């Protein structure tokens, strides 16, 4: 224990330098200590700790040092999904509906079964029960339009991580896992992007106009038996069925049924109407409620001003036109009603109560009751536009508010679902509303730029509101539209500036829009009109450019700016999250209109996708040896007419060899001597095949009768022996069903803006005939084949290209003239000759040259036998003999002048 010594810089330096540490650490330590100036005790502790730390961090030889982090590229869609309660737009066979993705996928997996794929349960939904229709979703395609596409797969898996919630400027929200991908547009191309890469200010598509779903036409009348169960209410049609002896469902016991059949009752049951079981007032409503404007209006009115009690439905409103319509509706259904004035609440009100338990039950089931629970009925989304328009009119007449100062039409409600539903219905009509929510109140505003559209499609019944709406319409016409921050077209690249320069319009007009990469739709429309005028003045035609601009203006989506990205905790540890896999661009739309993407399918084979080609020296040898079958023949197939992923896949399937083994499970039964093939419907759909397409080639090749039942084929061999069964099995796998025999695999790669197919295996003559293949660009990497199919000049080019690319891939640069020489020499005689002794070198006239190259003795002996003469023209033989060669100096011969 030394005497107390004041610690000076010198002492610090001495102490540290005495330690056995690397100089760099010593310097660092000295610097820190000089900064801190500890006292002696502290200095001791610090030094002790540093030495300890240093020793502990030391590594012995052969000790494992760290973890090598590897990332699996082949993740099939884990962690890319939506939480269970996120709503999505779907079509299940009866028009568009809003369902929670969780309930839908859970039901589908239960119905169709799911298979485990790398941690997720995947299900391929077939036809649903309703109308035998398949599940479809609205999907954004590459040109900005929304089309209904089939859902090919749906999946769920447990989520252990956080969720990202995106909020857009128009008030729409979407929650998904961070790896879930969305779509954005860059340079005019719509492409996927991972949620984690999105930033504030990026613009994602939100649907502003959703077209009618494919099965919507079937819904002009609503079948009320879905909402009023047949075993609780009397249906006239069921009585008819009972009378005819068909199966029926009635809410009463046999005795009462007998009475009704015999007419022994107090009220008649007519076909086409529903009755309550206890019917004293002869109340009834139609079995199939027509989805006309009056019914729609009434539903809207109920949502706005309605309330119910077990025996009646009440609509409260002071306006007489409103009340008239309520009475009209009640009358059209032959329902009685009573009217009361009431003084509850903060203003006098007038109630019209419609007496019908059936109506009440129906409304409560489809719309909910109580202001917090009301929602737009599901069938409304798939209903005709007229119905939707009048539903909205009924609602806005009751609860809507037109503000001419603020230039908006507003509604508010405490029911979040109701506001979402109204927004969606407005979207169906092409009106994009903005949402705003606080804890208890939810607001929806329609900017006045949509006033005219609103007037046309919806309108108001109430005089005052209609007048205000008219004012808004005139205002919007006069004032021109103010800057609308929401309705934007984004991600168009340089197309605006290109068109402007082409027409001589000053670029500054579109310059800032191009810099920001977004422009208001109105501004775009003005620009487009201006371009049209400028084109006329100049006398040029620009149909393609105008078409491009028009396509952007008419898009079915707006590009909504992301205003906030929040991280949320997952709904619960290990809760399921869900996903769809959609045909085509693979997008689907949530209930709020946000377009989201799914990348499940493109990830499946991400690890194994590259085509293996020979490179480097071996490849060079192959080419120069003009080998008849190179080790990795590859064809590069280009497509005609519009490069889209779907077309690429179609063509790819027509080229890739498909055998039964790819289509179904083959079960060989050795005892019963049969082979059963269970065909997978999805594989058939993917390759665009039908059952006859499969059975015909089988029958033709195998010459054996085939039993077909559903999707199962059964075959028996001709002879009853095990040997012929096994032979049949082998032959079965060889039968070609679709595609070209020599081509086991095709890979599609996106090269810039077009899709190109690369095939393992080559069959140029077969491929050129296939529809969709561009015969002017498709090539093979096998020069011999190029010569056969395209001719010797093509072979010459092919040789040059192949050699150049092999060298370039290795990073070597050789001037093309040398390669041209080799290629010319190989092809000058009209066929592809190799450089070696079976080609060029073997055809040299000089014996010595040939003998010096390869098989020496044979050449010399054969030449000797035949008495051949070597003219000593070339280089090699002159070098052997020792004379100057016939080039350069030796190019001239001296003759003596006589």
């Amino acid at each position: 224990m030394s005497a107390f010594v004041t610690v000076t810089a010198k002492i610090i330096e001495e102490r540290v330098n005495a330690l056995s540490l690397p100089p760099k650490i010593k310097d660092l330590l000295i610097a820190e200590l000089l900064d801190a100036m500890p006292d002696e005790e502290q200095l001791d502790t610090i030094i002790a700790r540093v030495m300890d730390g240093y020793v502990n961090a030391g590594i012995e030889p052969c000790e494992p040092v760290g973890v090598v982090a590897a990332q699996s590229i082949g993740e099939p869609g884990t962690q890319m999904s939506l939480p269970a309660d996120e709503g999505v737009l779907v079509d299940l066979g009866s028009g568009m509906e809003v369902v929670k993705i969780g309930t839908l996928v859970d039901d589908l997996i239960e119905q169709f079964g799911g298979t485990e794929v790398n941690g997720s349960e995947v299900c391929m939904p077939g036809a649903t029960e309703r109308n035998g229709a398949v599940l479809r979703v609205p999907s954004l395609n590459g040109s900005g339009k929304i089309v209904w596409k089939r859902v090919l797969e749906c999946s769920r898996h447990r989520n252990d991580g956080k969720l990202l919630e995106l909020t857009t400027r128009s008030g729409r929200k979407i929650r998904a896992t961070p790896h879930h991908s969305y779509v954005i547009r860059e340079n005019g191309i719509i492409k996927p992007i991972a949620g984690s890469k999105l930033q504030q200010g990026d613009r994602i598509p939100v649907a502003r106009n959703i077209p009618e779903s494919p099965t919507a036409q079937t819904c002009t009348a609503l079948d009320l038996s879905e909402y009023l169960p047949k075993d609780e209410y009397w249906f006239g049609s069921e009585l008819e069925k009972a009378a005819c002896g068909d199966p029926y469902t009635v809410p009463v016991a046999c005795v009462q049924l007998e009475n009704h059949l015999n007419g022994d009752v107090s009220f008649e049951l007519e076909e086409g109407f529903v009755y309550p079981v206890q019917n004293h007032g002869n109340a009834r409503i139609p079995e199939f409620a027509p989805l006309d404007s009056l019914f729609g209006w009434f539903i809207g009115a109920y949502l706005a001003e309605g309330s119910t009690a077990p025996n009646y439905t009440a609509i409260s409103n002071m306006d007489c036109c409103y009340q008239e319509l309520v009475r009209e509706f009640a009358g059209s259904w032959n329902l009685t009603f009573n009217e009361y004035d009431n003084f509850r609440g903060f203003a006098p009100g007038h109630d019209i109560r419609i007496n019908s338990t059936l109506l009440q039950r129906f409304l409560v089931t489809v719309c909910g009751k109580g202001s917090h629970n009301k929602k737009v009925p599901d069938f409304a989304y798939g209903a005709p536009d007229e119905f939707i328009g009048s539903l909205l009119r009924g609602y806005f007449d009751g609860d809507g508010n037109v503000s001419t100062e603020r230039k908006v039409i507003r509604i508010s409600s405490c029911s979040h679902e109701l506001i979402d539903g109204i927004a969606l219905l407005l979207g169906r009509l092409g009106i994009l509303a903005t949402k705003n929510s606080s804890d208890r109140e939810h607001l929806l505003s329609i900017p006045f730029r949509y006033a005219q559209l609103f007037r046309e499609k919806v309108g108001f019944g109430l005089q005052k509101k209609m007048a205000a709406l008219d004012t808004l319409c005139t205002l919007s016409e006069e004032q021109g539209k103010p800057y609308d921050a929401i309705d934007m077209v984004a991600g168009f690249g340089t197309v605006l500036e290109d068109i402007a320069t082409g027409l001589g319009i000053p670029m500054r007009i579109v310059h800032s829009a191009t810099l920001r990469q977004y422009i208001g739709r109105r501004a775009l429309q003005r620009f487009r009109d201006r371009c049209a005028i400028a084109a006329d003045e100049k006398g040029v035609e620009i149909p393609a450019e105008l078409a491009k601009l028009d396509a952007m203006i008419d898009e079915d989506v707006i590009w909504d700016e992301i205003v906030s990205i929040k991280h949320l905790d997952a709904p619960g540890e290990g809760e399921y999250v869900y996903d769809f896999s959609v045909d085509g661009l693979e997008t689907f739309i949530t209930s709020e209109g946000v377009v989201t993407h799914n990348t499940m399918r493109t990830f499946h084979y991400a690890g194994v996708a590259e085509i293996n080609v020979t490179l480097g020296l071996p490849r060079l040898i192959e080419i120069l040896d003009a080998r008849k079958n190179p080790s990795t023949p590859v064809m590069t197939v280009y497509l005609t007419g519009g490069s889209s992923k779907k077309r690429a896949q179609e063509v790819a399937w027509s080229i890739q060899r498909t055998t039964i083994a790819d289509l179904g499970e083959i079960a060989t039964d050795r005892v019963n001597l049969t082979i059963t093939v269970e065909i997978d419907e999805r594989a058939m759909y993917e390759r665009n095949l039908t059952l006859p397409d499969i059975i015909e080639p089988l029958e033709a090749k195998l010459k054996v009768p085939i039993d077909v039942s559903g999707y199962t084929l059964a075959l028996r061999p001709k002879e009853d022996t095990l040997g012929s069964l096994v032979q049949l099995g082998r032959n079965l796998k060889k039968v070609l069903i679709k595609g070209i025999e020599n081509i086991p695999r095709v890979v599609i790669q996106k090269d810039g803006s077009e899709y190109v197919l690369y095939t393992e295996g080559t069959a140029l003559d077969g491929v050129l005939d296939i529809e969709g293949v561009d015969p002017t660009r498709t090539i093979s990497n096998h020069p011999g084949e190029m010569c056969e199919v395209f001719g010797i000049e093509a072979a010459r080019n092919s040789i040059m290209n192949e050699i150049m690319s092999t060298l370039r891939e290795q990073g070597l640069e050789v001037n093309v003239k040398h390669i041209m020489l080799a290629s010319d020499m190989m092809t000058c005689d009209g066929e592809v000759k190799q450089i070696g002794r079976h080609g060029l070198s073997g055809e040299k006239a000089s014996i010595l040259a040939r003998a010096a190259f390869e098989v020496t003795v044979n050449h010399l002996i054969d030449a000797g036998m035949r008495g051949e003469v070597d003219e000593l023209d070339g280089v090699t033989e002159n070098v052997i003999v020792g004379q100057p060669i016939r080039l350069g100096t030796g190019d001239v011969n001296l003759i003596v002048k006589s």
Partner: protein
Amino acid sequence: MEFCPECGSMLVLKDGALTCRRCGFAKERGEGRSVISVEQRADKTIAVLEGGSDAGMPTTRARCDECGNDTAYWWLRQLRSADESETRFFRCTKCGKTWREYD
């Protein structure tokens, strides 16, 4: 698949009974344990590669002579004999020009 206890050859299903072709021995079908060999379907999907095929490669700062870009993908190959060092290949991220360096 069963075998004849007398001559050892395989029993074949003929008219509902398992008979031996060689010696005529016949036996009842029994519980019918069929031997079925099943081959699963090879799930082939045509892969679509969207990103550039270089996308997975590591990058470093290296100046491209053609376009002046400062980032390049790199990979190492041992081209010369085992006692020589590796040749470094570079491919510019922008223009795709490939070159090599060896010391």
